[in-house]
């Protein structure tokens, strides 16, 4: 092999990595643009890009519009319109909200927006109908200036827009008043208003610009995808986060370079690693797994090992580190009589539901209710990490999968009791959680969330493929099957009701443990840390210890729940249950309802498992009307509405970080408390004269 040959290969690899690198760069630039102009770490960027790409696709291929009007509609009308709506209805009121609040809302939007668009526009992906680009014959005409690797017209357009976009946006921020104003509004809207700058208009303009860029990126990226599907955009966004991270969310040139660098790194590793593995067999495991893992390893590595990245967020958030402790739970401020009434109602309600379930429910409803209970158990892990510790973890699905896969492996290899295996799975998940927490502990806030998301995608892309995790050949023949447990005379495989009872028992045990944790030393330490880390340390609280414990406990609970879910379904069913996207939806659900309470986790579990069958499919309405025939024809309603409704509910997180349920409880409790305490006061007042007399 000559040096010249190696050189040509290397150059070719760089050229081959340039088109995907440009895609990452475009998204990275979009991230930076949105963050600089709105202060939002916009995980919904992919959703916005997807909507414009799908609109362009529909206009071009279904309506047979020409390129220019389709581009105007999708990029210069629809995209900024979405940006303006988001700004006016959501983000205008959140300028001073925490970065974490904005992130949660962005996650909610990333769930809701694509589903909403698909419902409104009746868009469905069709196999093989590749999107066309913004230049004629974009994918079929190639240019090869140096005779090594040709680029298509579409790819050249991508590169041109990325480069020109970076230059124009850089000039906008550096040399124009509006650019400076946009950054000023993000840093301090009040100050900019005092200077006579209309913050609302500037913010609206910023959202329109960044949304148009997202739309343009989407339209440009789309021709790379054989079929236009939303999930592809989400994955691209996660990969491109590394590019934005290299730009520390503020530097456009670095984001561009980061995106290109990532594309080159993947192409070079794809070119050379397999060859080296042919010569050195010990390299094989790395070649098999490194390429899919690269973007997530890069992202994770940047977050963990580059201190400057942590400071970049802090620098733009003047209130960072001053997070007022969350208010007391409604349940802890209740009048004793109200507490008694609530508990009596709760006992009555659950007794009635339990009676109906155990005596009337058929196998389908038993399955769904059991699933709700087990999901509620998993959601208690979010209660611990988010509700108590105030951290956003997006890898709870991976922890749950660890529990499920451990049960599968233990039962398959050693015929171990699945309940014992479930506990081992939970412990393994706890160990992984604790280990993961060590490097990400210092991150906090948004970066912690992103690091956990990188881990979730790493688990999804790499770990699941290992035979000692996902099963490999065993799974090929029989799937990841898991048996039901036997406990003495109780065979939980024989009766769905008995397994539901077991799931309820596990939920109660974990709930009690979480309440104990919340009210105990660790819970109080975590609350103190949320208020002021420095003050907490000054009274002897170790932030590292408290957070490691929170992470480990949270992972333990998720692992236990994941194991129970696998036992319940008698299969791990990873793709159905535990993907990163599913875990993002879990988080949205729990924080929307109530992240701090056991009830919140329970309600989120019920919402996930039962909202669709009960509400969207019309079962509840049929029950009320006493006939399925009377249910209007609009039922069953598309399951996508579930994503829309719960995704949009997350919008309320910034105003009510305690969740909608807890907010409602607090309001109701306050009114009743006033009445009860007033009555108490009257009684006391009435008693005092008598006593005086």
């Amino acid at each position, binding site marked *: 092999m000559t040096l010249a040959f190696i050189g040509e290969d290397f150059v*070719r690899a760089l050229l*081959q990595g340039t*088109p*995907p690198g440009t895609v990452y760069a475009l998204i990275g630039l979009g991230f930076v643009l949105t963050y600089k102009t709105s202060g939002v770490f916009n995980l919904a960027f992919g959703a916005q890009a997807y909507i414009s790409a799908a609109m362009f696709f529909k206009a071009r291929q279904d309506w047979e519009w020409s390129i220019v009007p389709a581009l105007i509609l999708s990029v210069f009308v629809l995209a900024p319109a979405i940006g303006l709506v988001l700004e006016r209805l959501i983000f205008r009121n959140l300028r001073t909200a925490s970065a974490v609040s904005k992130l949660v809302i962005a996650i909610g939007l990333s769930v809701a927006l694509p589903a909403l668009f698909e419902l409104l526009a009746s868009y*469905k*992906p069709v*196999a*093989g*109908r590749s999107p066309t680009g913004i230049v004629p014959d974009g994918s079929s005409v*190639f240019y090869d200036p140096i005779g090594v*690797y*040709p680029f298509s017209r579409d790819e050249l357009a991508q590169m041109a827009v990325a480069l020109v976009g970076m230059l124009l946006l850089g000039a906008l921020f550096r040399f124009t008043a509006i650019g400076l104003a946009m950054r000023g509004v993000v840093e301090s809207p009040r100050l900019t208003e005092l200077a006579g700058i209309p913050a609302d208009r500037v913010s609206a303009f910023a959202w329109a610009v960044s949304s148009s860029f997202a739309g343009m990126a989407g339209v440009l990226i789309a021709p790379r*995808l*054989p*079929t236009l599907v939303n999930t*592809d955009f989400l994955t*691209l966004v996660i990969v491109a986060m590394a590019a934005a991270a290299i730009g520390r969310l503020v530097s456009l040139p670095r984001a561009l370079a980061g995106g290109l660098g990532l*594309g080159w790194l*993947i*192409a070079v590793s*794809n*070119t050379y690693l*397999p060859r080296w593995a042919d010569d050195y067999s010990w390299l094989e495991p790395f*070649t*098999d797994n490194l390429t*899919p893992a690269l973007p997530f390893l890069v992202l994770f590595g940047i977050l963990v090992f580059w201190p400057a990245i942590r400071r970049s967020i802090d620098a733009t958030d003047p209130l960072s580190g001053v997070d007022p402790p969350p208010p007391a739970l409604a349940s802890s401020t209740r009048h004793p009589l109200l507490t008694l009434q609530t508990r009596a109602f709760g006992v009555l309600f659950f007794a009635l539901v339990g009676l109906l379930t155990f005596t009337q429910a058929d196998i*389908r409803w038993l*399955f*769904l209710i059991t699933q709700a209970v087990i999901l509620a158990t998993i959601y208690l892990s979010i209660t611990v990490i988010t509700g108590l510790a105030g951290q956003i973890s997006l890898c709870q699905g991976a922890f749950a999968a660890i529990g499920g896969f451990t049960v599968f492996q233990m*039962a398959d290899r050693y*015929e171990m*009791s699945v309940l*014992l295996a479930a*506990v081992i799975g939970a412990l393994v998940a706890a160990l992984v959680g604790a280990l993961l927490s060590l490097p990400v502990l210092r991150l906090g806030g948004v970066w912690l969330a992103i690091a956990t998301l990188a881990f979730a995608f790493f688990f999804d*892309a790499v770990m699941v493929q290992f035979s000692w995790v*996902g099963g490999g050949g065993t799974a*090929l*023949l029989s799937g990841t099957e898991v*048996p*039901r*447990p*036997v406990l*003495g005379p109780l065979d*939980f*495989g024989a009766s769905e009701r008995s397994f539901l009872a077991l799931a309820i028992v596990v939920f109660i045990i974990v709930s009690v*443990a979480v309440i*104990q*944790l919340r*009210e*105990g*030393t660790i819970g109080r330490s975590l609350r103190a840390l949320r208020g002021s880390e420095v003050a907490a340390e000054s009274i002897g609280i170790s932030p590292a210890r408290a957070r490691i414990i929170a992470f480990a406990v949270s992972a333990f609970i998720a692992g236990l729940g994941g194991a129970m879910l696998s036992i319940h*379904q008698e*299969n791990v069913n990873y*793709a*159905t249950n535990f993907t990163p996207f*599913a875990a993002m939806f879990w988080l949205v659900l729990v924080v929307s309802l109530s992240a701090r309470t056991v009830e919140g986790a329970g309600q989120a579990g019920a919402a996930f498992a039962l909202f*669709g*069958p009960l509400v969207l499919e019309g079962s509840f309405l049929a029950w009320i009307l006493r006939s399925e025939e009377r249910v209007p024809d609009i039922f069953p309603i*598309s*399951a996508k509405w579930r994503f829309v409704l719960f995704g949009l509910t997350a919008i309320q997180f910034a105003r009510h970080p305690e969740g909608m349920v807890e907010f409602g409880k607090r309001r109701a409790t306050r009114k009743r408390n006033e009445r009860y305490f007033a009555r108490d006061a009257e009684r006391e007042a009435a008693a005092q004269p008598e006593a005086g007399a």
Partner: protein
Amino acid sequence: MHRRTQGFIAVLLAFGLLAAACGNSGDTETSDTTTTTTTAAPDDDGGDDGGDDGADDGTTDTDGTDDGTDGTDGTPPAPDRDTFVSIEGVPGVSDEEIAVAILSLKEGNILGTCILDCYQTGIQAYFDYQNSLGGVFGRQLVIGDVFDDELVQHQAKALEIIADEDTFVTFGATLNPTGYGDLDDAGVPTFNWGIQAPQNNERFNLFPHLGVLCGDCTGRAVPYQMSLKGATTAVALGYKISPESQTCSRTVGSAIDFYADDLGIATAKVYDDLDFGLPNGIAPQVTEWIQLGVDFVASCLDLNAMKKIAEELVRQGVRDQITLQHPNTYDAAFVAEAGDLFDGDFVSAQFTPFEFTDHPQIQLYNEWVDAHGGQTAEQTMIGWMNAMLFVDGLIATGPEFDRASLVDTINTEFTAHTYGGLTLPLDWSRQHVAPTNDDRLTNGATQECTTLVQMQGGAFETVTDQPWLCWPQDDLSWQEPVETTFD
């Protein structure tokens, strides 16, 4: 340590100890489970008692293709399909109709292919045809409930079917069939698009359209395609995320090497670790193929990935030099959309290809699918075939039928069923269990057969005079295939 924390740990420890003292369901009661499944399972002796078992069996009239003649369907002589006997207590069966359920995928189909709608069209078209003959046992065949599993709701929907108890059998076509185990456990006969071996394996109430397939059997189809093209050097491609795809790529690579001396072919490399959807493209790999002198690509990927590969071959200027073998691209609309991108590539259909327009079953299919306003698609044909096996089985069962007797009839008496000549003979007394490369005959077909069509100008063309190419299953030495039809 704080008391509450101690309490927390104590609770977990107690739970762990309790868990350690227990076992798993089925550990000691395997025989009970077996009894449940074997009520519908074939006899161990291959179904000799009471049924017919070979190519000399009498042929039924139900497929409409061979009235009054004996054939190779392996189905017993049909009783009078017009005999009406009132039946009570059989789900989905009234005096007027037999209702079935469809559990398939529409929302959330990541491939973007037509699954539920096309599959339902095939079933409905076949039911229309059968109803035009007067129905079965005095009853009309109707589709009762249609469920969309939305990719992740299959098990819940399967349980809904079981709970509702208002349909007789279930038809299934999906990508993520997590509920097949429940349907099988509940004794619901389920006719399905059988691409998932794990979910169908050893489940005797399930009827995947080609039986349970062997994942790692050395096949001769790809080496034969290479020899047809005069190709010498191949790569095999599989997805890392899918064990089926991964194993398929390794198996194809081994098969090419197995016949290396006979055909002068070789596998240059097996890529069994590709990312689903090829998100980073396939450029470095194509460059490597060029350097390795590859002229044939054997693939275990989806149709969208094949398009990406073909486009990259065009870009690197080697499209004319490298032939692609497509496992999943038998989709007329998809290929038409691609234009001449796939010219010269091979596709294997899972049934007698539509291009054999003289085939009586294809003619019948076209007639009724056209009448129904449906499109000619792979999934439509799968629906048609599933419906045909159901109706054939029902008629063979006789007018006093229920789920168990239907399953029992198919599993014991249908020993060479060909869907009216659409496939090679399937023996349902054996083919509920996945064959292995070491033992291909016990649970596999008696012949190894494949179909072959070529793509040209955005359409499919036949390569052979007869729809099927077959090799003996008990002799793996290289020999030219025999062109066959199973009419």
